[in-house]
């Protein structure tokens, strides 16, 4: 995916922007356009936002303002391992916030960010419906149950080790 981000936006996104430009307040569709790009590419790259700026004639400072204001926009590609911590009520009560803190310190990144080596990214999710297993962490498609803050370093090491094999 990330290689694609340096390329031009795909024709579907361009067609979508063109359709927005036909509407009454074209600039008010900026958020919709950014959503579309995130769906397609997984995040908003600077190159893509630059293209939106030129295509829709909206200054990059404004696009940058919008994309950093809303938490749901990702500004970096997901890591090879996408870590998601459930912050639903059950998980939270059982200490998911402490688990999140442990991931943040271990990886040195915040929610929505990716480690510089591109290996890990961190995000939160809402209730996954497996509250009996709380607190729940998923790494890519794998579910880890009853995770404690203490287990976090070990967990990361094992994922890393598996990746090297």
């Amino acid at each position: 995916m990330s290689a694609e981000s340096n390329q031009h936006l795909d024709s579907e996104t361009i067609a979508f922007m063109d359709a927005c430009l036909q509407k009454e307040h074209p600039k008010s569709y900026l958020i919709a356009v950014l959503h579309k790009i995130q769906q397609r590419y997984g995040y908003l790259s600077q190159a893509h936002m630059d293209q939106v700026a030129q295509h829709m004639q909206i200054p990059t400072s404004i696009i940058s303002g919008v994309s950093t204001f809303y938490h749901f926009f990702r500004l970096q590609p997901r890591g090879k391992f996408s870590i998601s911590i459930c912050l639903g009520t059950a998980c939270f009560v059982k200490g998911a916030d402490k688990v999140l803190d442990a991931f943040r310190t271990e990886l040195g990144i915040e929610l929505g960010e990716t480690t510089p080596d591109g290996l890990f990214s961190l995000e939160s999710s809402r209730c996954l419906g497996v509250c009996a297993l709380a607190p729940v962490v998923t790494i890519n498609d794998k579910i880890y149950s009853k995770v404690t803050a203490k287990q976090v370093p070990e967990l990361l090491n094992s994922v890393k080790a598996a990746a090297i094999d």
Partner: protein
Amino acid sequence: MKEINLTIDDQALSVSQDTTILQAAEKLGIKIPRLCYHPDLSIEGACRICIVEVDGSRNFVPSCATPVREGMRVRTNSPEIRQARRDLIELILDNHPRECQICERDGNCELQNLAYAMGVRDRLFEGKRKRHEIEKSSLAVIRDAEKCILCRRCVRVCAEVQGVTNLSQLYRGVETVVAPAYEQGMADSVCIACGQCINVCPVAAFLENNSTDRVWAALADPSKHVVAQIAPSIRAAIGEGFGLAPGTPMTGQTVTALHRLGFEAVFDTNFGADLTIVEEANELIKRLEKNDRLPLLTSCSSGWIKFMEHFYPEMIPFASTCRSPMSMLSVLLKTYYAEKTGRNAKDIFVVAIMPCTAKKFEAERSEHCSADGYPYTDAVLTTREFIWMIKSYGINFTMLPEGEFDAPLGFSTGAADLFGTTGGVMEAALRTAAEKLTGKPLTELNFDQVREVKGLKEASIEIAGRTLNVAVANGLNNAKTILERVKKGEKTYHLIELMACPGGCIAGGGQPYPPDNHYVLDPEIARLRAKALYRIDEAKAIRVAHRNPFIEKLYQDYLEQPGSHRAHELLHTTYTPREPRGIK
């Protein structure tokens, strides 16, 4: 418009219905404290310092954002309001560095003044506050987000006056920061280096990239021959730094101050301005003859030139190729003057005192460096930096005797003085073009049609049996308006003067912060400074650029004739489209 009756602090008045409480109070001589408000920008309502009590309202209301209503009863002062305002200021200060004594804005900081006026006498909070590195990538404008109080005046001036929209508020909550897109460096952004964000910032979150250290070092270096040149608009504004009223001309004192600081010779950018006019009028006449690349766009404003390169690269062929007066004079200092005085150009250190931050950028452009790489202008100081140097040196500026510029590059005509104000370059060019086209001296030298301090002016002027359509734009949103008209072919223009700053160089991004009874970018200050320049022009014996005897001699000795190969080599320049491309 409907008149509304209300009372403010028990005084009755009537005002038109589009007035805000804050504006109505000003009519009664009540200045409600404010921070984010600026009379010529859109209303932000961000700081809430301007809160007042309105009968019937449960909460305090922000007076800058609240229109008057019939029968309204407003109270601007009560112990509760005063306490609330103090609390708001304290909240800002809690998240602000404690370094007034070592801060560039010490003594003219709106936050500092407000804190004192609101009665804040303690700084209790010792907790965590936001941390940011100072962003120094730009040669012109640096950004210190740690001091930013998020009033967004800079965001508004950059978008609403300059049409650049380089700045915006990024992230949210405690992480909020005002910066260019992607938080990139100012040098990598569409910033045109005009410095208007510095002017409107109430604190020291935007500043010029300071060059005083380099100048002190050069002055102390015996191997350097350090010379100065001062821009036309400096003489009309510098006095404000020493408590004089805006528009008090201080030309002679400025020359003396420069000598006292150790400059070996003091020249006048005005000489460069006269020369610019001779070359530019020649360019205009040639293009008129061939009906080629019209309108001619003036090129002396470095902020406008950078704007053209980012936003209107398609207009580059229309721009005059003349270097700015500063750069013309600097080139002559390192060629003509060096040869005449038997010096090596490398030993001459040229300091330009400018109203402008964009000139710092211009000075470092490769186009304004010699073939072997040294810059023609070694350092650019803003009016503010220069005022500071004078104070720092212990010079009592207002008591100084009047000095004289060094000859011959210090002699100028009245036309040159006009360069400092909007419409001035146009008027100077028209004087010379008219005399050259008719072959006769003008009887009336003043072109009142282009004189007002106003964003956009148009006039049609009869010269030698033809009508010249001219336009004058300052503040780059106005430049956009006029350039769009040109591009759409709505009207045929022959000459357009463009200046980046609102009012021209007299309101440049490097000029003094306003005195107490004015607000920043108050057009009234610009008017007073412009008036001073018009008075200087009127008082001069020679008021047409090409009749400057030293310019005539310069062509005979050195440059052959206007537009000659030699003149092109030394006095003209080129432009390049720039990334990132701006959004019109």
